[in-house]
């Protein structure tokens, strides 16, 4: 048997079911490795001793019929966890201890998994590099001083560094797929409405979606099966037939039609990305699929649309942080002064910037010119995909326009940071499922990802295509444990 923390989720489950490993052994192994990996700054809150206690309790009377029997896992600190501090990466919530559990994490615990701790992320999930977190940036285990992507940067770092066998993130504009791409891991953003938003700290409610992050497609499929559920506590949760994604997973994708959108061939795209995409096309072709050129004509307008819609929703969602009912409070001379100081001291610069953009585009006299305009363009973007899906079953694109960049490289230029999400944002605007799988390395040896975009509610096909491609690509992540030595 290989070292515990090097095993995939599927291997760990098999070993626990075969009684070759106990939950306590597995949990202790991940706790120990996490303890040795503090330099990565992946955790905001550790819950290690409670995790070991829960594992011991599980082992006393193990229920091996569960889908995640005694499996330890850390989750993004955007999911409310009952009695465990939940910060959303912000000073504003540094003292917030939820009295309730998010539906997604509850689904996970119901299947036997055990909380290891809460993972770092960009403040209120606003960022693409995990550098906006109040708790400091996260290191990418691939190389020192490299960002792990964002906003689910603690999650991607922790999975790639094997501090947790699997994890969950949230994706509003690419926050699962971009960090997965930067760390050589697999990340799935499910269809809007498949995973409940109840108990997830809100950023932009019409775009936010929780999703699994893992080391391979099969693990990702299993975790998606656990977290995806209809929930009456989320009014946009959709009641549709969910598959047993891991059981029904197949690499037989013969005859599927894969679209290649010409608009994703952007100006100035590095040759390495272009080459990776070409290789990806060859891989899916080898799987017996048919390749079709398609057009998504409004692709170029997706980012500007996103940077109106997301801040507008954020400004409204974040109005609740006023220093009264929970969270940080600064002293003020009067009520208004208290609000203004609380919000100016409690929020970081990027969050303030986005609240102000959102407030402006929704303000009297500007609503039609910005917000309404963006909603109309969003419709055009969705129409593009609807049109394309009359001809194809899925779409293949790069996940990001570059490999992971250096810490500090883009922090002074918000627009260049935003451009990172150019291939992922359209998927959120259209509410579609998308997955990033590791597909190769650039000249520096950093991982690069390919994105597959599916039809709404068609996660099974999407995962099947990813599974078939994964087999052909045979990617090996280059992790040297530099942070432990």
């Amino acid at each position, binding site marked *: 048997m290989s070292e515990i923390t090097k095993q995939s989720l599927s291997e760990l489950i098999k070993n626990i079911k075969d009684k070759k490993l106990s939950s306590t052994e597995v949990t202790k192994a991940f706790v120990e490795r996490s303890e040795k990996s503090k330099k990565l700054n992946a955790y905001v809150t550790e819950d290690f001793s409670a995790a070991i206690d829960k594992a011991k309790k599980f082992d006393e009377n193990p229920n091996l019929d569960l889908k995640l029997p005694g499996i330890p896992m850390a989750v993004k600190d955007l999911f409310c966890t009952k009695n465990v501090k939940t910060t959303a990466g912000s000073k504003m919530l540094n003292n917030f201890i939820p009295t309730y559990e998010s539906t997604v994490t509850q689904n996970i615990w119901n299947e036997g998994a055990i909380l290891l701790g809460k993972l770092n992320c960009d403040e209120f999930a606003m960022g693409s590099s995990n550098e906006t977190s109040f708790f400091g940036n996260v290191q990418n285990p691939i190389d020192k001083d490299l960002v792990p992507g964002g906003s689910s940067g603690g999650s991607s770092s922790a999975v790639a560094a094997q501090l947790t066998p699997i994890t969950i993130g949230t994706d509003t504009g690419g926050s699962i797929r971009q960090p997965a791409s930067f760390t050589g891991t697999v990340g799935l953003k499910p269809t809007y409405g498949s995973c409940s938003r109840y108990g997830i700290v809100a950023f932009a409610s*019409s775009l936010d979606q929780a999703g699994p992050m893992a080391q391979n497609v099969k693990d990702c499929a299993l975790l998606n099966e656990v977290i995806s559920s209809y929930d009456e506590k989320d009014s946009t949760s959709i009641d549709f037939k969910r598959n047993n994604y891991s059981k029904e997973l197949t690499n037989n994708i013969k005859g599927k039609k894969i679209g290649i959108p010409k608009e994703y061939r952007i100006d100035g795209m590095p040759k390495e990305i272009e080459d990776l995409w070409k290789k990806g096309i060859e891989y899916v072709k080898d799987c017996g699929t048919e390749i079709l050129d398609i057009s998504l004509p409004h692709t170029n307008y997706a980012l*500007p649309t996103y940077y109106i819609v997301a801040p507008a929703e954020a400004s409204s969602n974040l109005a609740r942080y006023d220093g009264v009912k929970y*969270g940080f409070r600064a002293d003020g001379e009067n*009520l208004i*002064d208290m609000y203004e100081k609380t919000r100016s001291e409690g929020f970081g610069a990027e969050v*303030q910037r986005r609240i102000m*953009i959102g*407030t*402006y585009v929704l303000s009297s006299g500007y609503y039609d010119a910005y917000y309404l305009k963006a909603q109309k363009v969003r*419709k055009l973007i969705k129409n593009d995909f609807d049109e394309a899906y009359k001809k194809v079953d899925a779409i293949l694109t790069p996940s990001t326009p570059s490999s992971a960049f250096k810490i500090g490289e883009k922090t002074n230029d918000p627009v260049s940071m935003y451009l990172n999400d150019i291939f992922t944002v359209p998927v959120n605007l259209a509410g579609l499922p998308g997955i990033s799988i590791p597909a190769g390395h650039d000249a520096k040896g950093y991982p690069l990802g390919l994105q597959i975009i599916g039809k709404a509610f068609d996660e099974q096909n999407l995962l099947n295509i990813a599974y078939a491609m994964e087999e052909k690509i045979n990617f090996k992540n280059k992790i040297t444990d530099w942070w432990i030595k």
Partner: protein
Amino acid sequence: MSIDLKTIKHISKLSRISVDEKKVEKLAGDLNSIFEFIEKLNELKTDNVQPLTSVAETTLKLRDDKVKSKNLRDQIIKNSPQENEDYFVVPKVVE
């Protein structure tokens, strides 16, 4: 379009985020580069396009109007920065 200092002050007031003088210049620069980027949408003619308000094309479900959670007072007040018995406390608003 250019966002001037007066506009920044106005947005700051609307969003209840105080902005000190040192930060105003930098913020104006950042917001202007972001808005320049957003203006790209004006290239598109959208007069006859219906705005998309939700990608989930379902109608909201109705549910019975029943109380499901009770006695949550302690939980609700638990995380408040300042409370007094059963109330949230804020700076004095009435003289």
